[in-house]
């Protein structure tokens, strides 16, 4: 079967791999720059939460595509990628499946995804250990955990002694190579947040050799009885028309997927994109946890999951150890921060950790997407923030509950220093075309036969915490069933 996959991020990677293994001819259409195209810079800044991976070529996603979108966006800051490999070049590499609670309202049974999760851990190195998260999330990991910092070990030991209902704590599941018999792994250089210099953090940049790769940006899909036709433009703006694809799998990311489908009149001209509210919470470590260990790693070290209980919403926290770029961050955030000497800042920051909290997509502000009638061919989207009136209250109660728990493990959160990201900055967004509601279980928008959306657009819910693992597993499931 001739199949086109649009997009080369994690979901595109997962779908392409599955289709090739099933013996189909796959064409990947992606507008992404590849490293040789780009001139690296380490001065460019486009976002306050993800401005860090700028040293080892991972700044590609932030570079402007020659004819990139000019968004009319207000109160939102969605992060785009125009690079081969998508946002997996700059991600925090967290890979946690959805739990039962997250999929309560799905019309798809979560157990349908179990075998895809298992297949993925064979293909991608995922670190982890049997701990407090295993009962809720299952043991989906294929490598030993990266050695956590000494403070994290002591926090986990203390947490073991505390009985706290509805709270799970465990080592982070990360898509990082920690070494097997044949390959070496993480060397604890602590440069994770700048992009791994050894390429041990997994990304989907290296597409499968069997797939044909076209560097085009899709403008329109035309569905007919014989298959799907694709209209696209190349880097120079020259239009191309690609015919005779029996199926198209759309994995371009929720905003780009919406633009393509709305321009093709497959879906309506406006939609609501759900986003997981993200906030940044500095945490003081009490002296009995000891000093910061000099060698550790920079990605998230610990997951704390707060389950839904009678009046409180579900949320998830990821704990990060002290790293050098916190100093620059603190300088920007503090009033007159630039005047404080580095040594004094470091003295305080070494006694701190950072927690990044995520709320459930249902309890967070969302993004209103609208296709402009009079826009140009590619710059025709308008994004607006759609506020959620209880946002601050929900975050406050969640932090209160989190503090109550971690205080007994030797951590003291500082809620007055909380920074809340604007919608889109947390990069956990999607769910504008939920399966079982606006599309069928194979990601086909109503009325469409051969166009399958496989990215985060079709997830019925945005869970607190990482969504990539489920997006990839779902893309794999749809790819398998679409060609049956």
């Amino acid at each position, binding site marked *: 079967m001739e199949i086109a996959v649009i997009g080369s991020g994690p979901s595109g990677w997962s779908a392409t791999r599955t289709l090739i293994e099933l013996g189909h001819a796959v064409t990947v259409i992606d507008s992404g720059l590849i490293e040789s195209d780009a001139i690296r810079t380490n001065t460019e800044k486009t976002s306050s939460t993800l401005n860090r991976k700028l040293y080892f070529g991972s700044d590609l996603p932030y570079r402007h595509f020659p004819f990139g979108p000019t968004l009319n966006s207000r109160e939102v800051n969605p992060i785009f990628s125009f690079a081969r490999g998508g946002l997996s070049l700059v991600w925090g590499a967290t890979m946690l499946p959805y739990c039962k609670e997250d999929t309560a309202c799905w019309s798809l049974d979560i157990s349908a995804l179990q075998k895809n999760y298992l297949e993925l851990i064979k293909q991608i190195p995922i670190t982890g*250990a*049997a701990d407090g998260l295993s009962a809720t999330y299952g043991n989906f990991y294929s490598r*030993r*955990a990266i*050695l*956590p910092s*000494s403070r994290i*070990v*002591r926090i986990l*030991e203390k947490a073991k002694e505390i009985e706290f209902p509805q709270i799970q704590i465990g*080592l982070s599941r990360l898509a990082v190579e*920690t*070494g*097997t*018999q044949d390959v*070496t*792994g*993480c*060397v*604890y250089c602590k440069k994770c947040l700048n992009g791994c210099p050894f390429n041990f953090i997994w990304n989907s940049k290296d597409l499968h050799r069997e797939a044909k790769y076209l560097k085009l940006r899709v403008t329109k899909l035309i569905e007919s009885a014989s298959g799907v036709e694709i209209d696209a433009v190349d880097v120079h703006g020259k239009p191309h028309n690609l015919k005779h694809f029996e199926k198209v799998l759309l994995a371009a990311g929720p905003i780009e997927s919406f633009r393509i489908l709305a321009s093709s009149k497959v879906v309506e001209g406006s939609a609501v994109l759900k986003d997981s509210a993200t906030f940044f919470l500095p945490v003081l470590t009490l*002296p*009995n*946890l*000891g*000093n910061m*260990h000099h*060698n*550790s790693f920079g990605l998230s070290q610990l997951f704390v999951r707060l389950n839904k209980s009678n009046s409180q919403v579900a949320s998830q926290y990821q704990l990060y150890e002290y790293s050098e770029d916190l100093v620059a961050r603190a300088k920007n955030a503090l009033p007159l921060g630039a005047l404080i000497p580095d040594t004094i800042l470091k003295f305080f920051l070494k006694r701190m950790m950072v927690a990044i909290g995520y709320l459930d997509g249902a309890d967070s502000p969302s993004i209103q997407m609208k296709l402009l009638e009079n826009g140009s061919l590619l710059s025709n989207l308008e994004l607006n923030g759609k506020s959620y009136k209880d946002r601050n209250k929900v975050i406050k109660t969640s932090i209160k509950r989190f503090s109550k728990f971690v205080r007994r493990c030797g951590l003291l959160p500082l809620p007055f220093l909380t920074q809340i990201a604007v919608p889109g900055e947390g990069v956990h967004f999607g769910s504008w075309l939920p399966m079982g509601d606006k599309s069928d279980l194979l990601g086909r928008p109503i009325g469409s036969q051969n166009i399958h959306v496989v990215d985060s657009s079709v997830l019925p819910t945005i869970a607190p915490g990482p969504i990539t693992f489920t997006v990839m597993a779902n893309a794999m499931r749809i790819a398998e069933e679409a060609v049956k």
Partner: protein
Amino acid sequence: MRVAVTGSTSVIGQRLLSKLSDSGHTPIPFGGSESNIWRIGHRCPSNLDLDALIHLAHDRSFTVHENIEAATILCESFKGKKIFLSSFSAHSESISIYGQSKYAIETIFNNSYGSSIRAGVVYGDNVEGIFAQMKFLIRKLPIVPLPYRGSPLLFMTHIDDLTSEIVKNLNKSEGLTTFGAHPMPISLSNLCFQIQKVYSLKQRSISIWRQPLDVSLRLLVRFLPNFPMVDSLLSLSCEASYEELSKLNMPETIFRVFEIN
């Protein structure tokens, strides 16, 4: 395979001998006080027709230099496959005599057709060594001093995991150092609590700062160099560095989590 085992009278040695004969090898025990074939510092007998040598023996009353010399003699007199049982306290910045000599011997073995396994604190039933010494200390002391600020992290290895890993390494390539412990470390104070809990010892414990403990141990080891227990405690208090652990080879076996019963 005919495999010689030095230090075979120790608990690990005894367990290893039975493991070797279970897996079809012929173990030849070396060492022990009554043994007249081999002692630390002796050459390996050449008339035994050996295929491999496993070096477990370590004399704590030796200095670093004497330990290195004994290992060199052993390595030079036997040219076949060799395995050395090293320790997590063996690394380039180690301050204890134990760690320093293990680290040096590791290099000698890896350079002469040998490989090494770095074990953590070995536990299991009836184990000697650091674990037993800690148990002894906790039993004898009226008040247990626990390091308060940042107690060091320890890697734990069960004796059965360790011996089966050694037997497996007989067929592996040379020049490798293998990481032989459960990858999740535990803190020293947690270990003390666990020992107290399991043996239902009801002492009071006091928390002391780690730095004074380290300094006093360093002073003690300088003035009482022939007192092995001080050196063992010192080797416990110096953590293995993560950068070095990452260079080590990780076996397929996931070692069991620390649980004493």
